[in-house]
C-alpha cells in the first residue's frame, strides 16, 4: 500500500475566541491547535500523544469535523473535507467514526443496544426491521457481544462491554477511519487488554485506519505504527513507533517515555522529572516547552520557536537541539 495516505492533515489550526470587554465581544483568540500536519497511511495507526490540555482530542474531532477547524486542510482519501457542505458531510460521515473515552457516556442511556447500533444502520442505509436486526446481531457477534444483549440498556454492561457497543455502532456504517479517543483509559487493565486486542483484530479484518489518541505511551507503543507527540497544540515530534521509543529526540518525548511506570521493580531507570506542569499560557516567544525543558537550554530556545524539521527516515522533531541550531 504505497498510494496516498487515507488521511492527510495540513496545517490544521483551531482557535477559540477569548471574550472580554464591556459587551463580551471576542477580543482575542487562543490557539488550541497551531499548525498541525500529519498523514495516516491506509490500514495503519497513528498515535497522537500528549498530556491533558495538549489539544489531542480537539485534533481528533476536527479531523472528522465534529468541531469546525479554524483553518487548514483535511484530505480524506484525497477529498478535502473542509469544502463539504453540511449534507455532503453527513453522507461522508460513513467513512469516519469516533470511539469515545467514556464508553458509558457515549451511549444514549434511554436506548437499547439494538436501537443504538440499529440507528446507525437506519441513518446510512435506511435499514430497519428484521434486516437491521440481523445486521446488528452480526455486529454484536463481531465485537464479542451476545445476541441476548440486543434488548438491554447500556447501563447494564461493564465498561469494556460498553466500549464494544460503541465499536459495534461505529462499525455499522463500514467506516474506513476510526478516531479512537483514549478508548481504554477508563477501563481496567484486564479489560483494556481485551479491547486493545479487539481493535487490533478489527483493524486487520476490516482494513481500518486508526487515529489513536492517548496519553498512555505503553498502549501507544503496543498499538501504533507511528507516533505524534503534541505539546500545547503543536507537534513536537513524529516518527515510527520504534524510533520514538528507541531514540526519542525531543526532551519532552524523552521525559514522557522515562516517566512510564513499568511494572518491573528491577527496572531502575532514571526518571526525567519535568518541573511544573502544562500551563495553558504558553510563552509568547520561543519554544513552548522551554520553561519546563530539562535539557541544556540554548539562548535561542527562549527567543525563536523551533520549526518541525525532518531528521531522516520520516522522523520529524521540533527542537533547537536537533535542528542544527547549536552552532
Amino acid at each position: 500500500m504505497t498510494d496516498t495516505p487515507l488521511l492527510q492533515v495540513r496545517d490544521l489550526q483551531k482557535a477559540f475566541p477569548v471574550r472580554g470587554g464591556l459587551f463580551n465581544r471576542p477580543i482575542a483568540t487562543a490557539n488550541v491547535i497551531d499548525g498541525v500536519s500529519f498523514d495516516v497511511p491506509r490500514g495503519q495507526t497513528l498515535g497522537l500523544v500528549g498530556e491533558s490540555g495538549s489539544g489531542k482530542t480537539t485534533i481528533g474531532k476536527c479531523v472528522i469535523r465534529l468541531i469546525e477547524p479554524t483553518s487548514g486542510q483535511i484530505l480524506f482519501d484525497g477529498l478535502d473535507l473542509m469544502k463539504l457542505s453540511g449534507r455532503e458531510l453527513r453522507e461522508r460521515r460513513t467513512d469516519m467514526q469516533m470511539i469515545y473515552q467514556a464508553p458509558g457516556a457515549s451511549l444514549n442511556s434511554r436506548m437499547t443496544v439494538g436501537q443504538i447500533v440499529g440507528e446507525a444502520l437506519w441513518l446510512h442505509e435506511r435499514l430497519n426491521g428484521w434486516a437491521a436486526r440481523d445486521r446488528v446481531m452480526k455486529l454484536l457477534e463481531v465485537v464479542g457481544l451476545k445476541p441476548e444483549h440486543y434488548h438491554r440498556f447500556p447501563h447494564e454492561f461493564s465498561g469494556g462491554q460498553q466500549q464494544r457497543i460503541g465499536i459495534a455502532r461505529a462499525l455499522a456504517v463500514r467506516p474506513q477511519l476510526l478516531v479512537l479517543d483514549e478508548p481504554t483509559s477508563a477501563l481496567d487493565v484486564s479489560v483494556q487488554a481485551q479491547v486493545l486486542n479487539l481493535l487490533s483484530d478489527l483493524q486487520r479484518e476490516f482494513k481500518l485506519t486508526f487515529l489513536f489518541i492517548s496519553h498512555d505511551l505503553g498502549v501507544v507503543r503496543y498499538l501504533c505504527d507511528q507516533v505524534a507527540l503534541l505539546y500545547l497544540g503543536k507537534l513536537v515530534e513524529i516518527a515510527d513507533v520504534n524510533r520514538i521509543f528507541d531514540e526519542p529526540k525531543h526532551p519532552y518525548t524523552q521525559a514522557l517515555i522515562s516517566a512510564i511506570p513499568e511494572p518491573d521493580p528491577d527496572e531502575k531507570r532514571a526518571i526525567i522529572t519535568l518541573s511544573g506542569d502544562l500551563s495553558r499560557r504558553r510563552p509568547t516567544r520561543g519554544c513552548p516547552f522551554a520553561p519546563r525543558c530539562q535539557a541544556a537550554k540554548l539562548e535561542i530556545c527562549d527567543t525563536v520557536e523551533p520549526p518541525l524539521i525532518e531528521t531522516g527516515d520520516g522522523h520529524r522533531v521540533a527542537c533547537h537541539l536537533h535542528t542544527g541550531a547549536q552552532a
Partner: protein
Amino acid sequence: MLFRYYFLRRLILIIPLLLGLSLLTFFIARVLPGDPVGLAAGPQATQEIKEALRREFGLDQPLPVQYVTYVLDLFRGDWGQSLYSRRDVSADIAVYFPATLELTITAIVFATLLGVPAGMISAIYRSQLPDHITRVLALFFVSFPAFWLAMIFQLIFGLELNWFPIGRRLNALATPPEAITGMYTLDSLLRLDFGTFALSLQHLILPALVLSFGSLASITRITRASMLEALDKDSVRMERALGIPYRVIVTKYVLRSALIATVTIISLEFGWLMAGAVLVETIFDWPGMGLYAVESSLRLDFQPIMGITIVYGIVFSLINILADFIVGVLDPRIRYG
C-alpha cells in the same frame, strides 16, 4: 472578564429588557377589547366627552406613535396618568411600592430564617425523623392557598387571640414616620421613633408571615438539596479525614456552598413573592403595588399597568444582579462572561 464590567453590562442590559417588557405590556394592554375610556368617563358620558378624554390621553393616535410617545415620556421621567383617577402613576408608585417592598422583604427574611435552618436540619438528618418532619411541614404550609391562609390567620391571631392587628400598615391615629424610604419600619428606625417602629412591625408580622409560606418550601428544598450535594462532596470526606469536627465542616465549609444555590433561589422567590403579594395585600388591606396592580388591571387602566410592569422589571433585574453578585462573592471560581 472583569467583575465590574460584568455588572455594568448587566445593568445596561436592563434597558433593552425594559423596552421589550414595555412593548409586550403595551400591546397586550392595548389590544384588549375593553373600553377603559368609557368606564373612566362615567356612565352618562357623551361621545364628545369620551373623545376629549381619548385626545387628552393621546389614545386617538396610532398605536406605534402612542408607544414611542410613552417611551420618550418615560425617559423624561413622566410615567403618565391614571385614566381613572387622573393621578400621576409615578406618585402612586412612590407610595405603593415601598409598602410592597417592605412586605416582601420581611416575608423573604422570614422564609430565609425559617427555610435555611430547616433545610440544613433536613439534610444533616437525611432520611431520619427530623428530615421527614421538616419536609412535610414545608410542603404543608406551601400547599395552602395564601389568601385562604391569610383569612384563617387573621381570624385566629387577629380576632380570636388578638395578638396582631388584622390589617393595614399602621393604626389610623398613628402618624407614619416621615418618608425616607417609604417603608414604615425602616423609616421609624431611622428617625429613632421606636414606638412607631414597634407598631408598624406589629402590623407587618402577620401578612409577611403568610406571604413567606409560599417560598418556605422551595428555600427549604433547595437548601436541603444543595446541602446534601455539598455534604456528598469529596472535599467533605477530605475534611473529615483531616480530623476537622463535623460541626465545623457543616457550619463553615458546607454551608457556604449550600448557600450559593439558595441565594439564587431566594432571588427568584423574591420576584414571585412580590408579584404574589396582591392576595395578602387584599386580605390585610395593605396599600401596596399588588392592590394597585389588580385594581388597575381590572379597569384596564393602561398607564399604571405599564408603570407597574416596568417597576417590577427593574426590581427583578436588580435582584437578579444582586444575587449574581452575592454568588460571585461566595464563589471565587465564578468567571464573568
